[in-house]
């Protein structure tokens, strides 16, 4: 177990490092491109003097850059709740208070979609990879070519037109019915939430399942040539055992790390899908913030996205180290 801990510590340090680089980017990019954040804001908006004052104080613009960065770190990392400033659009609401409302919706949407598509994709990729050149394999190759060539949000629009506007199977947008007055977490409420989440989920699942499937298939293309695979077949093992204990167990390792890497891509796409369906997650929050030049909010959204994606990657590392005996016992 010794090395396993070392592996995890290394990955944790790595996650922290990534997080700080992301923070640095969030902090430095506006300052690199424009003269100062306040200027960008002031140029784009009529601001009440109180807000300008507040901003100048918040950014500490009279201090050297590294001090500003340290202040920023202090505010967003070592303060709880993180001090991400105030939204202009919804002043005096703090950015954090808005994020706390939106983030669960996004996590729910992305989490459940990724769970479904990772499962379906891995299975489809497993069967396609074990039966190369057969019907499922071909279907998969072409589907993935098509879905990966389409903008995520356009797929959302198409589903919206077909399933919501024309067939009226699902609501056009939103997360809950305006008329829904049932108490939170009651059965009716949950049904309503699922009903509204269906279209965005379907979109994300359709767009990402082939990605996972193709990764699994190509991983198997290598695995199937491995000696242990040939040996497994020669041993006359049951098909299910060959598929799951040999193909899946070996192929799942690269899949887990790739799912983690792809998580950012999925989240990025989900933001746009949220916009199409007016889903009240961080994507829609971001969209509105962009429209109203609400810079602290925009920064806040990226802050929270950074944490989410890096956190998801770290969790993937944990899973990886658990399922790979080469790391678990060394």
């Amino acid at each position, binding site marked *: 177990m010794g090395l396993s801990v070392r592996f995890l510590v290394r990955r944790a340090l790595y996650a922290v490092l990534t997080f700080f680089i992301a923070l640095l980017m969030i902090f430095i990019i506006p300052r690199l491109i424009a003269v100062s954040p306040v200027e960008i804001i002031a140029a784009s908006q009529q601001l009440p003097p109180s807000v300008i004052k507040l901003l100048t104080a918040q950014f500490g613009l009279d201090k050297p850059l590294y001090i500003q960065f340290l202040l920023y770190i202090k505010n967003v990392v070592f303060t709880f709740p993180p001090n991400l400033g105030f939204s202009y659009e919804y002043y005096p609401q703090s950015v954090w208070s808005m994020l706390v409302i939106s983030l669960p919706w996004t996590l729910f949407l992305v989490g459940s979609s990724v769970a479904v598509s990772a499962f379906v994709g891995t299975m489809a990729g497993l069967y396609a990879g074990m039966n190369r050149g057969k019907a499922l394999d071909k279907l998969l190759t072409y589907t993935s070519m098509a879905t990966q060539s389409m903008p995520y949000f356009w797929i959302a629009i198409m589903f919206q037109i077909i399933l919501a506007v024309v067939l009226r199977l699902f609501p056009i947008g939103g997360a809950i019915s305006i008329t829904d007055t049932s108490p939170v977490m009651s059965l009716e409420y949950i049904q309503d939430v699922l009903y509204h989440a269906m279209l965005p989920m379907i979109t994300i699942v359709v767009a990402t399942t082939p990605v996972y499937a193709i990764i699994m298939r190509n991983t198997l293309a290598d695995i199937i040539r491995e*000696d242990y695979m040939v*040996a497994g*077949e*020669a*041993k*006359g093992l*049951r098909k299910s055992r060959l598929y799951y204990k040999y193909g899946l167990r070996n192929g799942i390792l690269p899949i887990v790390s790739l799912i983690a890497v792809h998580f950012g891509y999925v989240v990025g796409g989900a933001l746009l899908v949220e916009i199409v369906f007016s889903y009240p997650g961080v994507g829609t929050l971001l969209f509105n913030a962009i429209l109203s030049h609400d810079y602290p909010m925009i920064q806040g959204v990226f802050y929270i996205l950074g944490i989410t994606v890096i956190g998801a990657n770290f969790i993937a590392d944990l899973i990886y180290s658990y399922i790979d005996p080469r790391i678990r016992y060394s």
Partner: protein
Amino acid sequence: MATTIADIRGLSVTFPSKKGTVRAVDAVDLSIEEGSIFGIAGESGCGKTTIGLSLLGMIREPGSVEGTIAVNGKDVTSLRGEERRLFRWKEVSMVFQGAMNSLNPVSSVGEQITEVIIDHTGGTRKEAMNRAADLLRKVRLPSDILRRYPHQLSGGQKQRVVIAMAIALSPKLIIADEPTTALDVVSQEHILRLLKEVVKASGSTVVIISHDLSLIADMCDRLAVMYLGRIVESGRAQDVLSSPAHPYTRALIDSNITLDKRGKKVESIPGYPPSPINLPSNCRFSGRCPFATNECFDSEPPASTLEDGRVVYCYHPRHGNEGK
């Protein structure tokens, strides 16, 4: 006369490739007696592993098999589905070349031995575990190896595990493909001694596939020498090795001696074998053979049987060490 456990008639195995059809094995006849140790010798790529795999019915698409292979009275080429699955390992098992890679890296040794037993004979996990511990004892490994994963074992330990696995179902025939490559000299010794001992105890027939003639001389009763998918000479091991009749066999022996005496291969056999695609219809060794005459370049030599029962495919079979 002893009974024949495996009988191969007119076996050809071909694989399509972009540049033409590769004939990995070409019109091979072999019969292996029950309880014997049979050797197949030849350079890498001569088709010896392919023969091993075809005995298990393991020629994968797009490869195709012609001819008949009978093992224990069963026609291997016609086996399909569940019947074939149960035939594999129960009747013929294999010690794969490079034991290192033939173990599933994400399963423990115990899991890998028990899964074979359970998938073939049913029974509970506990029974299978007991049997697995038993098998490990036979190959002289402590039973705590059962809980280990392949990456935690040494090369020699893995090789023992693989042998334990091969005898797990007491098959009639065990194929050992280069059983000692990638092992150090000491482990090689141990593994060979173990293999011999285990085989004697189980009464299985063994086919040893190797490029190493001294290994085959050590272990085998009979042997076949292969070159480019064909058998060039076959017979009793001591006859063939003490007085090779085919020039290729002699070249192979010479190259082995060089290897032994100086510790490294100085020169083996001059020239390269021709590509196994679109093979010529003459003697395949003619291009590299010091004794080749016109007829060797023109047509394929037929089989001739020598007085000691050996079969040689050569126009100029030579006896003893004459001409040396």
